């Protein structure tokens, strides 16, 4: 009952706050967005758009209520907004952490995966497919599919499978089929193509769960709406704890789902500065010749193009070929970004910042040793930002801890060993792998 009450208030609220509605009508965010997909997928996309409007926007059959309840019971929502005592001291400002790392599965990814799998169920679909790169979205989808008793197939590049075995194991434990993709270079790009291919053949009974605010409409708005629970909670918690909205909100950005999830409810609060922290990789310089960007800072360094169904900002060479991106964190390692973020950056509403691998690793160690929270390497970029730019921040900063770092222990040992990282413990006994 109280769920329904809240919803009603929310709806009124949303009406007053246009930022929350952006893109819902036509999938356009200024010049970005759209539906650049093979014709064969269009009916599925139209069916999905219709389902999104009915179930997600209009709460038909109580979809939203069930979604919220399952997010709470199965996912562990609400996640806390925690004051970070030692970072607050260090930066002489109030630092609050939104603890998405405590969500079931260890990252914000479940908000979206659970929403989409549940929606697929409401749509009468009988099968779930998804792509995954680092394996975080795949594990979240596999969990949601097991929870909702839906058969699930996850496509994953063969090379990624070998790099992310624990996540592969988790997906299989959750009863999903993991299909190795051997075409091309065997990474996320190929996995996406392969999943689209599967979907093109099976649209009638299958739903494709995209893992971020990317892809054709309605995915960017739908994933944002599912992830917006982060900022809905954070905004209320901040007001309750500190008496007002924060001055700054910080989130890392790969595809941008945790980013928009963390920003959504603040977009209309003009006083709140929004910082999207991208992976600066080793450098922002690009190797045109090799088609390699040693970063994945598409908001900061990319330019407009069309990828995976949407017009957005991309890392591409002058011909328009998509670059291989790079980051110490595989979850940020994507050459595109959600069209809504591209729009908000152009509008000046979101401040894009690149934080390089070194600074991210320092952030990783800083949060681990001073706050007792081991963040995902993706998340660590947000803390690299804090260190570097804290002087320009206001007096109340909310940082989204998008995920926990358990999945990254191997990578962190290895990457730390390559460098002289400030504040890192002596790990020499472990180098050479665990």
């Amino acid at each position, binding site marked *: 009952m109280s769920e329904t009450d809240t919803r009603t208030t929310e709806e009124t609220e949303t009406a007053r706050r246009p930022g929350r509605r952006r893109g819902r009508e036509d999938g356009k965010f200024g010049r970005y967005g759209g539906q650049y*997909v093979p014709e*064969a997928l269009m009916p599925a996309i139209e069916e999905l758009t219709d389902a999104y409007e009915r179930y997600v926007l209009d709460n038909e059959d109580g979809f939203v209520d069930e979604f919220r309840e399952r997010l709470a019971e199965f996912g562990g929502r609400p996640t806390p907004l925690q004051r970070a005592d030692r970072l607050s001291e260090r930066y002489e400002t109030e630092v609050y952490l939104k603890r998405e790392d405590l969500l079931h599965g260890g990252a914000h990814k479940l908000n979206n995966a659970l929403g989409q799998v549940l929606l697929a169920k409401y749509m009468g679909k009988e099968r779930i497919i998804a792509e995954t790169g680092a394996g975080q979205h795949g594990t979240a989808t596999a969990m949601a599919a097991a929870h909702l008793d839906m058969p699930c197939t996850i496509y994953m590049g063969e090379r990624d499978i070998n790099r992310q075995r624990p996540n592969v194991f988790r997906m299989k434990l959750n009863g999903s089929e993991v299909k190795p993709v051997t*075409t091309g270079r065997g990474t996320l790009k190929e996995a996406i193509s392969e999943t689209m291919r599967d979907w093109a053949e*099976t649209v009638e009974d299958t739903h494709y769960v995209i893992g971020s605010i990317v892809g054709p409409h309605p995915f960017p708005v739908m994933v944002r709406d599912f992830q917006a629970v982060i900022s809905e909670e954070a905004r209320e918690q901040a007001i309750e704890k500190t008496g007002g909205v924060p001055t700054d909100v910080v989130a890392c950005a790969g595809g941008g789902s945790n980013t928009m999830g963390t920003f959504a409810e603040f977009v209309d609060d003009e006083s709140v500065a929004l910082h999207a922290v991208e992976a600066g990789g080793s450098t922002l310089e690009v190797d045109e010749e090799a088609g390699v960007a040693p970063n994945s800072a598409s908001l900061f360094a990319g330019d407009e193009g069309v990828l995976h169904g949407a017009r957005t900002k991309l890392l591409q060479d002058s*011909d*328009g070929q998509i670059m291989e991106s790079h980051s110490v964190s595989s979850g940020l390692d994507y050459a595109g970004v959600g069209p809504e973020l591209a729009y908000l950056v152009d509008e000046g509403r979101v401040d894009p910042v690149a934080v390089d691998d070194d600074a991210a690793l320092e952030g990783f160690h800083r949060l681990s040793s001073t706050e007792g929270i081991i963040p995902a390497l993706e998340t660590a970029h947000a803390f690299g930002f804090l260190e570097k730019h804290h002087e320009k921040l206001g007096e109340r900063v909310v940082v989204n801890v998008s995920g926990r770092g358990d999945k990254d222990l191997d990578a962190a040992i290895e990457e730390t060993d390559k460098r002289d990282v400030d504040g890192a413990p002596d790990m020499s006994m472990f180098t050479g792998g665990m």
Partner: protein
Amino acid sequence: MANADALDAAFADGPAYVPYLVVGDPDDESSKAYVEALDRGGADVIELGLPFSEPIAEGSTIQEALVRSLDAGMTPDRFFAFAEDLEVDAALVCMTYYNLIYQYGGSEARSASDASAGPRPFVERAAAAGIRGLVVPDLPAEEAEPLREACDEFGLDLIFIVAPTTRGDRLDRMMANVSGYVYVQARLGTTGARDDVSDQTTASLDRLGEYDVPKAVGFGISTGDHAERIVAGGADGIIVGSALVDVVAEGVAAELSTAEVADRLEALSRELKAGAERGHRSRTETVESA
């Protein structure tokens, strides 16, 4: 210099044979020999694939060909030079993804505040290289306005793909934009050679009956028999991609000579073309005997 006939002409007398190959697969020189072999084998239109790094609409056969071509250094400019160099009678169509079209001509076009500036330079260059039409599998009719305009300006046809699931408003919108021919997707799914002919094909052709534009059926055609049945079923042409790319891939795997592969492509082309013609005859006969 490519043949300058309009695409309509290719469909004018008898069923059209429309083969597809990836340009630059596995290298420019062999690729030229292969495309010319298609021409000798009876191609009416040739679809030249310009590889994009994220080909979301392709099956794995074509995707791997695209990777081979990219690895060998294919770019839009090389693609156009390749087209200019070709000595073929068939009309040339370029099949590629929208981002390459949109980016061509560098960042000036892109960063202009008018988003529609994008596709013009590509189309202009394509026209100059003798390309007569474009197929862009990730460009739906709803987003096609700027490209449609550029094609009109430079006299190119814009070919749309009609899926088994396309109907109603979407089909009308597409048909209002299409020219040259429609690419009728024989079945759900992505490209790739199959053994059977789908019921979906017949249904699609029925649905398209009222529109006055040639209907070329593609996706999965690999033999003369296929071709025959499809044309007999009402198609104005057949599009064959994966079956031909397979021949190239086998050549790569078995390290066959370029001439050997070209011969096989020519032979398969003759078979397909002959099948299409048989189908056409049987249809004419049916019509006559009716």
